[in-house]
């Protein structure tokens, strides 16, 4: 660190040196255990190499050694902020191979819980993004307050706050408890105002704009080249949202917009994309509650009671669409031989699951295509010639979850 009195210094030539610094794995702002090997020239980043794998838990190996039923419980941990999506991707891939038709009511339930989970994920991102930018105290707590309400709701339906284990192959785990939909509907009514409050603090703040505008510009071509997906890609001007492009589940019945920025995206655009996405998710939840067949839980119970005597498999009132799933049938589930790739639009991008099944109760090979993995790969390109402070702004804006990278 200390330049010695060399010949060059004596000859009045200023000698400068690059500084090699390890940011992480133990660093307050690397969102877990990312290690960045940085070469700094003063405050400028000249080279960056991300080192991942500190959280590797062999999730793919476990997929080959656990039954489908057991594995479903494990993979919520892959992306712990949006566990619904990992379960959903696995369920969709297995259902595709197995040709399972999911009851419509279960599809609606899936969309509702998934969008709630997207909200919780984005809210947590917003709070930590504030921390990354140095808004240490105020901002982080307001999104967490709303997230807490959503997590309470998810806990009431799934049993836990983060490791939901709710979406299953063939349906969902259980029916919503009485009064749940009413609570959720009430929350969605007040939520847009809360988002406006966050925006009042951050969106137009001159310091925030200075820190985010024209920082970490991700050109469209580069984004596609790196396989970046999700809001990060949409902020760079590519309208790739699976919910619109390849509608799955019941997304084609819902009216929502996908925010796309029409230029090369910078940190601010990625921020804005997520803020608008929260509004849209809120809208989706409201529509789902209005559209869900069988009505909210209390109504459904009445309906089921009314026609419980008929006992027909395709009863227009109780059978088919109103059923969610029978829990116990899944324990010994076997998926047909075959292979398939299914993807869902997780809060971070295209979350894909590639399954090769041989018809036994475990998978032959499961490969996860995690959005964070691809999104993180682009980080060295984004950081080049930016300052130390921008590392956190950019890294925060692409919203990487390290367990999702390392699996």
């Amino acid at each position, binding site marked *: 660190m200390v330049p010695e009195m060399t010949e060059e210094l004596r000859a009045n030539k200023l000698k400068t040196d690059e500084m090699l610094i390890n940011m992480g794995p133990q660093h307050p702002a690397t969102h877990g255990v990312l290690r960045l090997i940085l070469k700094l020239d003063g405050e400028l980043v000249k080279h960056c190499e991300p080192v991942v794998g500190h959280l590797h838990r062999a999730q793919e190996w476990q997929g080959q050694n656990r*039954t489908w039923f057991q594995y479903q419980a494990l993979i919520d941990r892959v992306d712990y902020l949006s566990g619904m999506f990992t379960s959903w991707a696995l369920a969709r891939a297995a259902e595709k191979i197995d040709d399972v038709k999911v009851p419509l009511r279960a599809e609606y339930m899936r969309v509702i819980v998934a969008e709630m989970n997207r909200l919780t994920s984005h809210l947590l991102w917003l709070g930590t993004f504030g921390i990354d930018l140095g808004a240490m105290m105020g901002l982080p707590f307001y999104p967490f307050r709303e997230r807490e309400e959503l997590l309470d709701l998810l806990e009431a339906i799934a049993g836990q706050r983060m*490791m939901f284990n709710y979406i299953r192959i063939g349906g969902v785990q259980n029916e919503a408890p009485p009064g749940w939909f009413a609570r959720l509907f009430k929350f969605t009514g007040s939520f847009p105002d809360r988002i406006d409050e966050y925006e009042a603090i951050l969106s137009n703040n001159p310091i925030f704009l200075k820190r985010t505008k024209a920082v970490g510009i991700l050109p469209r071509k580069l984004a596609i080249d790196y396989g970046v997906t999700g809001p990060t890609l949409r902020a760079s001007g590519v309208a790739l949202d699976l919910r619109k492009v390849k509608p799955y589940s019941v997304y084609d019945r819902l009216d929502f917009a996908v925010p796309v920025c029409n230029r090369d995206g910078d940190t601010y655009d990625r921020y804005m994309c997520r803020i608008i996405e929260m509004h849209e998710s809120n809208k989706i939840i409201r529509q789902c509650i209005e559209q869900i067949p069988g009505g909210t839980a209390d109504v459904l119970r009445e309906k089921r009671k009314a026609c419980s005597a008929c006992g027909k498999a395709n009863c227009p009132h109780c059978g088919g669409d109103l059923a969610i799933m029978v829990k116990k049938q899944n*324990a010994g589930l076997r998926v047909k031989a075959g292979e398939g790739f299914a993807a869902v639009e997780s809060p971070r991008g295209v979350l894909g699951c590639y399954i090769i099944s041989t018809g036994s109760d475990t998978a032959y090979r499961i490969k996860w295509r995690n959005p964070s993995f691809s999104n993180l790969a682009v980080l060295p390109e984004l950081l080049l010639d930016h300052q130390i402070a921008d590392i956190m702004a950019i890294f925060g804006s692409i919203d990487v979850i390290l367990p999702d990278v390392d699996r």
Partner: protein
Amino acid sequence: MLGMVGRAAEGFYQVCRGLWTVFKHSGRPPTTKEFPDVMPELPGAFRGRLALAVNPETGEHLCISCRQCERVCPDKCIDITAHKSPQTGKLELIDFKIDHGLCMFCGLCTEVCPTSCIINTSDFEMSEYSRGALIYDLKRLTLSQEESAYYFAKKDLPPPKPKAKPAPKPEAAGDAGESLAQQPSDVSQQPGPKAEE
């Protein structure tokens, strides 16, 4: 020059707006949950510590030693010791061990249980000073009759049918403990792998 002043004024206004928004929050009720003083209200679906329920009415143990939970557990944290009763020829539960240090509270065992015997309670305070203390045996796992009734009501589970057994073969909690005491050799012959910790 004027534009710069305008921008500065705009920035100042926006900063003030942010400050005001934050300041407004000081008039809002705090969201802190004072946990040890005020216990949280947990939903019925909450997956807390595992426990074995008894029949709320008769008090007989609901476990039929079918080992479904043991088989489905992803962590292999359940260890059931049972033997075929020489008198009745039926399975008889000797010991039921759950290593809560290994359990990840996925709730799969409660889903496969045919008699709704193993359930997730709302208890989440289970810290211990050693890992060994986290291994719960049959006695610690079995709920009382009142607790079972409470959880059956809270979780909206169908009420268990009384065991239609001609032979008087009580399997209530206390009796199970007695049978454990009577046959210590059986238990020691089959030590669970986690029991040694």
